[in-house]
């Protein structure tokens, strides 16, 4: 190894043998420098300031969100209270109005639902009997 070593004193001034190596060494040095620059950039990123009381605000928001259904239900119920109070009154009034016409209505319903359809007897004997009755009705006593 030491036998192959060339001391600087043995190199000629115009010896260009190591120029490529020197260039590549410069490039590596520069690339290393860029890597250190990138590391520096990464280590010096600014941080975000957290607004005061952020945690408290979010916590309150979250719990208001959770309670929102219960609150909505309460609000709706509160609005519906007059409706619930009016309901029996309106129903009472309606029942009263219906009760006024109750007799007629009940008869009509009875006709509809309980009266059996009349079976008409149109036999020859029935017709003759009817004609006999008519003729006797026409006779003046």
């Amino acid at each position: 190894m030491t036998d192959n070593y060339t001391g600087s004193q043995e190199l000629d001034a115009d010896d260009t043998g190591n120029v490529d190596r020197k260039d590549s060494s410069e490039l590596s040095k520069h690339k290393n420098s860029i890597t250190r620059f990138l590391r520096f950039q990464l280590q010096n990123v600014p941080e975000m300031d957290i607004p005061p009381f952020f945690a408290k605000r979010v916590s309150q928001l979250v719990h208001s969100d959770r309670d929102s259904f219960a609150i909505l239900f309460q609000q709706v119920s509160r609005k519906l209270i007059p409706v619930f109070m009016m309901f029996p009154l309106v129903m009472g009034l309606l029942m009263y109005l219906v009760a006024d016409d109750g007799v007629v209505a009940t008869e009509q319903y009875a006709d509809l639902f309980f009266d059996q359809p009349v079976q008409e007897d149109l036999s020859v004997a029935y017709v003759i009997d009817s004609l006999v009755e008519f003729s006797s009705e026409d006779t003046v006593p």
Partner: protein
Amino acid sequence: MARTDEELVRAVLGGDSHAFEEIVKRYQRLVFNVIYHYCGTRNVVEDLAQEVFLKVFRALATFDMRGPLKSWIARITANTCLDELRRNRREKVFPVADLHSGDENRIESFFEQFEERASLTEKDVSELFELLEKLMGRLNDKDRMAFVFRELEGLSYAEISQAMKTTEGAIRIRVSRSKSKIRSDLEDILLSGRRAVSD
């Protein structure tokens, strides 16, 4: 003595209103920084962080106690960010920013400052991040998320793999590919500048 994550989750499910506040305090920094570093804009961070914690609360009953809460929250944050990004692309709210020649000049000037070991102001740091953000914008969505989790938030590969529901190997590949891409883009900018000067 501070309660463990599992104890806090059980307490929230049992109706303890303070327990959720403790969970938010414990993970708000992670959530804020992931959103900021991923989306790259401060305007949306607070709203999205709030959305993340609302989702966490609503889904807490489905949380598997065997896994870490940190990864689970990171997962919800990642999904929220990805949804936001897709929505922005669809509605073109924030056009995708890419580097222009002025940005490249700024990177070169910062690099020279860095080589000369000149100190950077807070404004410089913020501007450097904007430039880095533009370089990260060239990555695909999931590579970028893995890169943010690993390189900016310092999560372990195991935590990231749970958050992104994939294997650790896949995450290592994503992070490595992202770093190579950003480094090569930086090299293109900085070496082309040098070449132009030497020519």
